[in-house]
């Protein structure tokens, strides 16, 4: 057993042992030899006062940080006088045509959705971040969009006399809003501001599912729910009371491709259109995603192979120790 220890340890143990009485010699020697390398020389840091102070400071600090961040102490339950209906009903997950990892938008649906937006939603909702040119090559031809833009008058200028003038719209103009400013929008809608729809899909929990559910989810208020005059009940809207009335009814618009304009068809189309408006780069993005996954997985496989190739000899080598021939020599 002692043969595995170094000569120094043996020597140390022997010198320590000689100063003690012979009855303790054996036990003392083996203990000091066994723990010679593992016993801490000084008091360990874990048991120190510094460690205690540091740990306490970290604990107090993290609790204070949590409280500052979330406004309540961690691990303590709270009681709220609220109801789930205040959060709004969670929408169903619908099988959108652009839902899959590789799926583009259904552009025929975007075109129909634009028609619904223009004929229905645009009466109250703006679409500030979409320009006419954005529709070109997505849902309409350039000639169609140019004709649509020319129907709208835009204020431009100043001209040589320093006066503003009216001109027909161009492809580079942004979609006109229904109201000149927010105050006018509120005044016309009983104090409620119809939100801009450019990014509405990204701006609402549930996204497209929420919007579709909201547009098709208008029902009579259940017993016990009071809805004020001028408000409407929609279980998907947080709080239930929404200023926007139900606007989509069967046959409201007439699609030029002959699709029956049912309520759910129009809601689906306008939701697809607004999904595109919120994410115009969507189709291109998914195509780049395919490319990136192929390239990066190939590179990853290559790097794994090269690592194994380079490490193979190192991992598989065998280290042999040939002790020098000491027979016939004295220690």
């Amino acid at each position, binding site marked *: 057993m002692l043969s595995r220890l170094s000569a120094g340890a043996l020597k140390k143990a022997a010198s320590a042992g000689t100063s003690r009485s012979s009855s303790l010699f054996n036990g003392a020697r083996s203990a000091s030899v066994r723990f010679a390398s593992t016993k801490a020389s000084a008091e360990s840091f874990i048991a120190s006062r510094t460690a205690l102070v540091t740990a306490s400071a970290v604990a107090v600090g993290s609790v204070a940080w949590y409280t500052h961040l979330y406004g309540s102490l961690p691990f303590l339950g709270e009681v709220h006088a609220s109801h789930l209906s205040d959060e709004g009903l969670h929408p169903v997950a619908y099988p959108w045509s652009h839902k899959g990892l590789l799926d583009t938008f259904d*552009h025929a649906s975007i075109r129909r959705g634009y028609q619904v937006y223009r004929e229905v939603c645009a009466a109250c909702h703006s679409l500030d971040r979409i320009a006419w040119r954005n529709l070109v090559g997505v849902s309409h031809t350039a000639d169609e969009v140019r004709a649509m833009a020319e129907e709208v008058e835009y204020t431009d200028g100043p001209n040589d006399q320093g006066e503003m003038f009216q001109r027909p719209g161009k492809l580079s103009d942004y979609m006109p809003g229904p109201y000149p400013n927010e105050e006018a929008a509120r005044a016309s809608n009983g104090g409620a501001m119809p939100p801009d729809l450019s990014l509405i899909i990204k701006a609402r929990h549930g996204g497209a599912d929420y919007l579709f559910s909201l547009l098709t989810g208008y029902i009579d208020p259940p017993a016990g729910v009071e809805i004020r005059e001028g408000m409407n009940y929609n279980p998907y809207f947080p709080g239930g009371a929404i200023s926007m009335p139900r606007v989509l009814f069967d046959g409201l618009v007439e699609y030029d491709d002959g699709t029956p304009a049912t309520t759910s068809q129009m809601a689906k189309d306008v939701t697809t259109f607004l999904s595109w408006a919120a994410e115009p780069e969507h189709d291109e993005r998914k195509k780049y995603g395919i490319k990136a996954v192929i390239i990066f997985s190939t590179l990853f496989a290559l790097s794994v192979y090269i690592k194994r190739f380079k490490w193979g000899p190192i991992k598989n080598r065998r280290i042999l120790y040939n002790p020098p021939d000491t027979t016939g020599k004295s220690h």
Partner: protein
Amino acid sequence: MSFASTAYNAVFRRNSVFVGSVFLGAFAFGIGFDVGVTKFYDYWNKGKQWKDIRHRYVQEE
């Protein structure tokens, strides 16, 4: 002549030829990869993209 020596004489022998073949290969791969992925993407999304429905609305002169 084996494939290895053919490849050596054609590509690797001169550094200028080797670097040129790397650049040319990257260019060709870039185009080929893009064409291949686009072909698959268009097949997967048949009938949904604008290029599939454009003919319904465009007026040819």
